[in-house]
């Protein structure tokens, strides 16, 4: 069968793009790959090691579990202790350490924690256990939000009463703005996330690029996509331009995914959100609209936000802002490993510490 993306893995193509990068590379630069899936691809294909010396890629705030605040992690773990509640969650949250233990530890003590691949699977759990309350832990960016919106609309259409979500969604443009406002960021260009952009389109980046004079390229996840992104960023720098270029047209329409955007708007509205490392950012979160309040686990169970206190010595908060690398963390590979992680960046497969641990420094 024709494998649609195999062409983007082609070695010759990647080599040619690398030659282009070498030619365009003039002086030291730092580009940030904003998305955790980019971080994974970059390490898997050893791309950092292929780049000319002085061309650095740094990871950004694009791993959803990693940017969730410690207070919110603690809130989730507390919630899981309620005997009438079944937690439904994506798998990468399980091992994330709260102030006292993780969801995994609670599960070992008898809490009911179900790992799902899709939020909609939560509704099947609802049907199977009508005597229990099922709470989906809604962590994720704009790519995940519409899948949760669709699940809520389905729950309403089917009259499912024992379903709610703990809504911890975050949106990318506002966080990027906060990052870019930091004069010490020291980043010369952004590789913008592929699948967040498939939903929000290229437009939200245009304002950021203009305002901060920042070259931005939307990139896909295959090696050639990422190399192309780097090459386009270098060309912009050399031409003295700061534009938004879409290097992932096969997935990202300029205006985004209108159907998904309208579903998000139907169910959610912007609110303040607390990010690990970045703190509170106005308009960077999404909460359920009044009309969908019945699905809000905070309301249903009378919860209130936990104050955040991030684990001492863990540098995740700095790593998210590209201010530190895992190698600067005294706990890296010593007290902190994937089997006994201290911070979320070591847990999630999209986390920078996990990538450094798995692939080493190339």
């Amino acid at each position, binding site marked *: 069968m024709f494998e649609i993306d195999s062409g983007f893995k082609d070695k010759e193509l990647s080599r040619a793009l690398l030659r282009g990068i070498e030619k365009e590379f003039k002086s030291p630069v730092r580009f940030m790959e904003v998305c955790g899936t980019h971080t994974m691809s970059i390490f898997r294909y050893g791309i950092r090691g292929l780049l000319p010396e002085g061309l650095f890629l740094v990871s950004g705030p694009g791993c959803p579990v990693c940017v969730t605040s410690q207070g919110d992690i603690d809130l989730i773990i507390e919630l899981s202790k309620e005997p009438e509640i079944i937690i439904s969650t994506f798998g990468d949250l399980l091992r994330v350490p709260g102030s006292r233990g993780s969801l995994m530890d609670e599960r070992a003590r008898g809490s009911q924690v179900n790992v799902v*691949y899709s939020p909609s*699977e939560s509704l099947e759990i609802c049907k199977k256990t009508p005597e229990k309350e099922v709470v989906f832990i809604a962590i994720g960016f704009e790519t995940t939000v519409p899948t949760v919106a*669709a699940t809520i609309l389905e729950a309403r259409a089917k009259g499912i009463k024992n379903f709610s979500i703990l809504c911890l969604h975050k949106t990318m443009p506002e966080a990027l703005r906060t990052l870019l406002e930091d004069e010490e960021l020291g980043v010369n260009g952004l590789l913008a996330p592929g699948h967040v952009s498939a939903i929000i389109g290229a437009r939200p980046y245009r304002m950021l690029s203009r305002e901060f004079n920042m070259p931005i390229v939307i990139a896909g996840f295959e090696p050639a996509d990422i190399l192309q992104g780097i090459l386009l960023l270098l060309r912009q720098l050399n031409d003295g331009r700061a534009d938004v270029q879409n290097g992932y047209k096969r997935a990202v329409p300029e205006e985004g995914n209108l159907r998904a955007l309208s579903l998000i708007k139907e169910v959610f509205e912007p609110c303040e959100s607390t990010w690990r490392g970045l703190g509170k950012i106005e308009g960077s979160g999404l909460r359920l609209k009044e009309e969908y309040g019945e699905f809000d686990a905070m309301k249903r169970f009378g919860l209130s936000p936990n104050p955040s206190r991030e684990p001492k010595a863990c540098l995740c908060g700095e790593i998210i802002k590209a201010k530190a690398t895992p190698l600067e963390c005294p706990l890296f590979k010593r007290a902190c490993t994937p089997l006994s992680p201290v911070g979320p960046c070591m847990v999630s497969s999209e986390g920078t510490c996990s990538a450094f641990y798995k692939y080493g420094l190339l």
Partner: protein
Amino acid sequence: MCLAIPMKVLEVKGEEGDFLNPPLAVVEASGLKKEVRLDIVDRFPSEGDFLIVHAGFAIHTLSEAEAKESLKALEEMAKGV
């Protein structure tokens, strides 16, 4: 969590806008077959299209021609360096 590979549509089941029985597509990539939801996809797909999938939901439809075109554009760019 993002699956980067677009998956080929073998069959479409159900109708657009039906929240009681959300529409599905049977898709395949690298020999892996599964069903994905079509509630949030930008363009409702037909058989033979490709879907980009996230958390069990298709988020974008592209035709084989569109995929080939973007590969060609990239190859052109690589040739030009």
